[in-house]
């Protein structure tokens, strides 16, 4: 397994390179440039800006220059925020995203798996209908509606000395994290519990479960020891997409709660045509995706004894 892990990590290098190359071409082909503004920038000023950021060089030379910097771990200077390098911007935003998304993911997994399993085991009971309702609401109501509702209730309606029970947004101590984590968790739980319920229901109709029951094993043992682990496989497949969307692409959550995280940075980077910022974040997201995929693959082996590397 160690060799497999090393091999996968080595494969990450060409993967990241390929993604960066494709994105590099795409961002440079996108209409509108970093210095296209409401007011036309004077030609001399534009020429100076292009020279400063090496945009006056041939495209291949620009690309090689970028790659050279990238290999040294330098993501370059932000076009929009000249006082900051992309490394600095990422370093400031990543802890915020990890603190919110990173915490929401394990909470969501635990809750989602648990209530999904309960719903499957008690099929067609009140608990099942309740979980299904939660899942449907979580999937049907968009974050940009659910988020403001949370703010309305916990920051505006419930107040103490004219200050909301929880902040309406911004970043700071634990109080600032409760509502964003809650929002992400509600959305994630809706998906995870639905998948878990369906998966466990399917496993429970399998012949090996019937065999286990025929052998006279208690129902609890049947579910916990025999059904749960194979039922987790589809949920594990969800892990990467949920983790990525919660940590690196929680744009709506970050907008609603004004969080200085990665999602907002990447959207603003794209809007501003901040090439280096977008590419730097693409590198980061790709690296995280590769890492999470590897973790999931290793977890497959832990969950399913038939899988060995």
């Amino acid at each position, binding site marked *: 397994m160690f060799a497999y892990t090393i091999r996968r990590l080595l494969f990450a290098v060409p993967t990241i390179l390929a993604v960066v190359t494709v994105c590099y071409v795409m961002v440079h082909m996108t*209409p*509108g*440039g970093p*210095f*296209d*503004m*409401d*007011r*036309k*920038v*004077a030609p*001399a*000023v534009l*020429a*100076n*800006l292009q*020279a*400063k950021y090496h945009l006056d060089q041939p495209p291949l030379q620009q690309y090689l220059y970028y790659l050279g910097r990238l290999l040294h771990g330098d993501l370059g*200077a932000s076009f*929009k*925020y*000249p*006082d*900051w390098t992309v490394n600095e*911007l990422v370093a*400031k*935003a990543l802890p915020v995203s990890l603190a919110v998304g990173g915490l929401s993911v394990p909470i969501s997994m635990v809750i989602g798996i648990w209530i999904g399993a309960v719903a499957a085991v008690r099929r067609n009971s009140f608990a099942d209908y309740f979980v299904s309702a939660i899942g449907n609401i979580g999937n049907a109501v968009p974050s940009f509606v659910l988020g*403001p509702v949370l*703010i309305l209730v916990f*920051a*505006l309606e419930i*107040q103490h000395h*004219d*200050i*909301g029970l929880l*902040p*309406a*947004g*911004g*970043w700071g101590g634990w109080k600032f994290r409760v509502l964003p984590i809650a929002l992400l968790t509600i959305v994630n739980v809706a998906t995870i519990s639905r998948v878990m319920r369906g998966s466990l229901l399917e496993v429970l109709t399998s012949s090996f479960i019937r065999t286990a029951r025929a052998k006279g094993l208690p129902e609890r043992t049947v579910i916990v020891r025999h059904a749960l682990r194979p039922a987790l496989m589809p949920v594990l497949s969800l892990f990467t997409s949920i983790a990525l969307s919660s940590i690196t692409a929680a744009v709506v959550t970050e*907008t*609603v*709660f*004004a969080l*200085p995280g990665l999602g*907002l*940075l990447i959207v*603003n980077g794209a*809007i*501003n*045509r901040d090439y280096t910022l977008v590419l730097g974040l693409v590198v980061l997201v790709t690296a995280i995706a590769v890492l999470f995929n590897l973790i999931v693959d290793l977890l497959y082996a832990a969950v399913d004894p038939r899988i060995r590397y």
Partner: protein
Amino acid sequence: MLKSVFRFLPACALALTATQAAPAVVPPNVQLAADQTLVRHYGSEAASLDPAMDESVQDTYIDTDLYEGLTRSDAAGQVQPGVAMSWERPDPTTWIFHLRHDAKWSNGAPVTAADFIYAWQREVDPKTASIYTILIDFFQNAKEILDGKLPPSKLGARAIDPYTIEIKTIAPTPFMPQMLSNPVLAPEYKPALEKWGGEWTKPGHLVGNGPYVLQSWIPNDTIVVVKNPYYWDARNVILNKVIWVPIDNNDTAVKQFESGQLDMTYELPPGSYNYLRARYGDQVHISPESANYFFALNVADPVMKDVRVRQALDMVIDRDTLVKRILGDGEIPNTDMMPWHVAGATTIQRDWMAWPMEKRIAFARKLLADAGYNEQHPLHVTYSYNTTDINKLVGLYVLSEWRNKLGVQGKLENQEWKVFATTRHDGNYQIARSGWSADYNDATSYLDLVRCGTDANDLQYCNKKVDALIAAGNAEVDDTKRTALMTAADQAAMDDYPMIPLYQRVIARLVRSYVGGYSDLDPMDREPSQDLYIIKH
């Protein structure tokens, strides 16, 4: 409060002096709060805290706290002495500024003329790649230096002695003292830049000369500034700390205001004025901004090149309904390229605005008929805009006006912001959403919209008569005559209908009742923190 008196006498040099700045004025019956901390929302994240790299209103807000130019703009938008105690204009294109001797940097070092010259030469240096050079372009040789044709040392500004600066301009620039209050023309502390390089604007490195000094800066989170004890007028600065909060979404900002986290918002969400006014009363502030919203007409377009078509489209729009029923946030109807009360010109009013709408429609129909358009051969137009709710709303309203009143077949075409900016600059449109906010409070800032070949002119419009009037106005040293010439230039351009002005924008925000010193009088919306204070509550 003393206001600097500014005028020009052609016969002789007149020393213009103002010996005392205008401090934050606290009425005698007002008790100040013990905690003088203000939390201000300021829109999107500041791009830079380097004055030479300023590019947005947001940058200007923060830099107004951190730096002080030769002059400063007070809460009411009046020019006050800054680092310069007084100034004079010995000839139409020369200004002499006399610096105070007690101005200091935030590390205690004296602010001298050399600091200004250094900052200005750095700003025009092509290596710096400043993006906002509109103001320094008025200095002699600035454009040639930006073009790389002259070295930065040739800029038309020099230190006569450590406390005297001479500025040579390319044309008479009566608004120079007002322009110099913009922090983009503030001094810079050379030793800090040399020591820290690109890191010089970081907390702990940044040395400023403004009323506040940078304490912390977390991108997209907060910029915290605290009172600068070395500021020459520190005794009149009341707020001890200002926390600037960038929030992209105005709805989010309003919620933070409602939850008690913010003392001031930057803007109000579109269409929220009535609701917020009912809920917060006088804490909702609306005041005119020196900025216009208009439709740009591409006069090179085969359809739009006909002035009769342009006039017909302009005449039938009911602007009162637009601002009262559709927008409803206090906007002011306008038919001129310049907003109301701009300095250096008189805003013109279309004579047909006084006509009944039926008469306007009849006249406009005749114009269109003369241009060859009728029910069998209706006029088709395409309106391009960058995707926002407001732009779409205004577009739908105006197109419905044209359809209902003139039978014009309109098409909306929305584009992503950067794409739209290129489309408009390149003239690849027929009718486009546009707007303009003044860089300095003078008519010339707006007349650049119609002057031949300027970077601001997206209209493809050029009228030599208009240019001649602007040139004559620029050369004129008598204020009254200059105003008449600029107004005539405005009138001549608007007679050609190169744009359809719709309304003057407003500054709309929530301000806590305990925030004192806030003024609704500055159309440039600087609102310096040093003029504000927290009332005991």
